[in-house]
């Protein structure tokens, strides 16, 4: 059985002008030890999925339908105090923006220790310190640096410290929300390698959220491509990157300048992501799609299995 089963998740944000349909009918599974990548433009709802899983949506955000089964329990029906037991121990998250995710007036070690103290109240001070030191070592930071403040860390070290913090309560599922975006290529490569190592060493399951397909290609074995709040393509990483079926996925992959290969004029997807207050009818990609047909404007395509384990929501198939 899958570790995490998300079925028909629908999350909307209430604003004055109506409901912003950020996530609509999204379903996916994450098995033990598996890494799922969720890719899409900004505004496609990928971060909202992460926040829904942990039920830490900002004010106005509401899960309107669907179920999130984590280790057999439906997270949506849990009370707030039961949910607290899941956060950090069950599912933890590495937020984007390593620069701002830490409290500047507390020592790094104390911030990591705080997660342990809250989730395992019985642990003594000496044990906490020992575990913090171990965690820092796991992510490649000298344990002595636990007494430093965040400003004394470089960008890459802060990102590592955040990963250490996310691992503090031994979670089974780690969510990375744009974990490499604000970093330089070399530090980004180091961070991604660390995450891959951790996944293999600790048997972690991961959900990587990124707009950068190459980051997902490097870390994940399953991929979900999101467009305007819906999954348009879902499946095995190799088959999605080698044989993208949805026109949006094809455009997204083509828009990436490859460092190898000939110099070419870059191609792009014309148009803009839709307004989620009033999304286009039927297939939400139809205003930008090069292969648009009449049926695309009338009926909504459903996610269907095209090849083995490769799902796509498009009328072309």
């Amino acid at each position, binding site marked *: 059985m899958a570790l995490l089963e998300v079925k028909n998740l629908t999350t909307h944000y209430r604003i004055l002008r109506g409901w912003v349909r950020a996530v609509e009918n999204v379903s996916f599974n994450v098995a033990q030890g598996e890494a799922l990548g969720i890719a899409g433009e900004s505004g496609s709802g990928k971060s909202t999925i992460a926040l829904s899983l942990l039920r830490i949506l900002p004010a106005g955000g509401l899960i309107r339908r669907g179920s999130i089964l984590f280790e057999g329990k439906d997270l949506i029906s849990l009370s707030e105090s039961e949910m607290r037991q899941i956060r950090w121990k069950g599912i933890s998250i590495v937020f984007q923006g390593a620069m701002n995710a830490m409290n500047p007036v507390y020592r790094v070690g104390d911030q990591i220790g705080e997660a342990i103290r809250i989730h395992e109240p019985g642990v003594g001070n000496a044990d906490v310190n020992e575990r913090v030191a171990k965690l820092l070592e796991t992510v490649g930071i000298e344990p002595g640096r636990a007494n430093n403040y965040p400003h004394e860390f470089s960008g890459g070290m802060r990102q590592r410290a955040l990963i250490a913090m996310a691992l503090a309560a031994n979670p089974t599922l780690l969510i990375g929300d744009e974990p490499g975006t604000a970093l330089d290529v070399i530090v980004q490569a180091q961070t991604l390698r660390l995450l891959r190592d951790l996944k293999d060493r600790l048997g972690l399951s991961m959900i990587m959220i990124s707009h950068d397909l190459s980051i997902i290609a490097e870390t994940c074995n399953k991929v979900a491509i999101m467009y305007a709040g819906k999954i348009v393509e879902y499946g095995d990483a190799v088959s999605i990157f080698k044989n993208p079926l949805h026109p949006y996925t094809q455009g997204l992959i083509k828009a990436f*300048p490859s460092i190898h290969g000939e*110099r070419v004029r870059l191609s*792009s997807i014309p148009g803009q992501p839709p307004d989620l207050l009033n999304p286009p009818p039927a297939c939400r990609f139809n205003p930008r799609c090069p292969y648009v047909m009449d049926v695309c404007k009338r009926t909504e395509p459903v996610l269907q299995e095209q090849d083995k384990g490769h799902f796509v929501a498009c009328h072309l198939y």
Partner: protein
Amino acid sequence: MESPVKSQTNAEPEKIPPAEAREGQGKKRKSKKSGLKYVQFETADGSLLEGLVQANSKGQNPNGRDLVFDKCYRIKDVGKIGRVWAVRDTDANENESSNSLQQFAQIEEVEDDPAIPKGPVVAVDNVKKWYPLKRGFFETVFSRDEMNVKAVDEVSFHIKRGEIFALAGESGSGKTTLGKVVLRLQAPTGGHILFLGRDISRLDDRGLKPLRRQMQVVFQDPFESLDPRMIIKEIIAEPLRVQGVLETDKDGRERRRRIGEQELEERVKKSLSEVELVPPEEFMYRFPHEMSGGQRQRVAVARAFVLNPSFVVADEPVSMLDVSIRAEIINLMVDLVRKYDASILFISHDLALAKHISDRIAILYLGKMMELGSAEAVVDLPLHPYTQALISAVPVPDPESKRTKDVISGEIPSPVDPPSGCRFHTRCPYTHERCVNEQPPLVEVEKQHYVACHLYS
């Protein structure tokens, strides 16, 4: 010091005594001590000569003042014809240290030859930008050493007409600082910047203002670079209002005139259509917050190109945008550059992008130039170990090529106290003793491919 142009105009050639006789005449005349001019010379076959020219003696300096950029010259003893593109006063010290330079005996103006390529738009020569470090009271009293952040340290390059020149490196490598110094938004600590053949490294704001028409900038963040209280029309019109329109009057002189409202509106409309914000009427009266990130960056591009500049600095223009929109903005800029024959200094950490759009790439590390060459050469056949590390760290959108290669460890060291010798030696896999002690010079290893590494010298 005044610009060298002026100092030369005042000097009457015949009355200048020989160099030795003038020594010790006080600081004011020091720059003229040698009477030599440093000249870079691009010949028709593209090779570069540099040397010192006796600037004040008869016949060698056609205009009796400064050697003027963009006219054809012949170096008599070498026998080559080309264009002079770097002229500056050399003082005695530089003269001695530059013994590798050729001594041009004579240089004379010849008829303009369109076959010889035009000189560069920007030439940067040994530019330094150091920021003094603020220190506490006790340190100021008890310690004499000055501490400086060496953001840019002795960098030289030039950008040709119509060229897209990319500056790449990690954050902290000094690429943004260099961009600001080249635009003279900040004054360099040392070295010279020649813009369209004019030394602008010591110009004041008033002297720079007419040149601003020719040099523009596109910033990284379209959410912060546009004034939220101005409508798009005003944002694009502002450079036109400030700079006015250039017109040539009856005597053939250029004159600046204020722009009328109607003309202004037309120019704004034209420039909005150029960046594909059509119909322009729909966008002209919007505020920046009513537009998406991609549209805002288009406005920033329109604003940069509205004065028809010959040089634009684009500082990470697409790093804040979504991948699917990036290509559009980049293509737009490339098209505008081709259309107006402008040059771009493209600052980016994305080497894949730089490879696809730029003609040449320079790699910066801790304020030093590590490698310089054509885009294909630098990315496909990188020579410097740092460039190699940068390129192997770029993620590839292919799940089957999982990165097995080594990623170099560590992070960029502090520029306050940069490593001795080669600045990369603390992270380099090939470090040997020489790297620790000796700074490698930038040498041409292959044709037009320069690298600063002891492995190649």
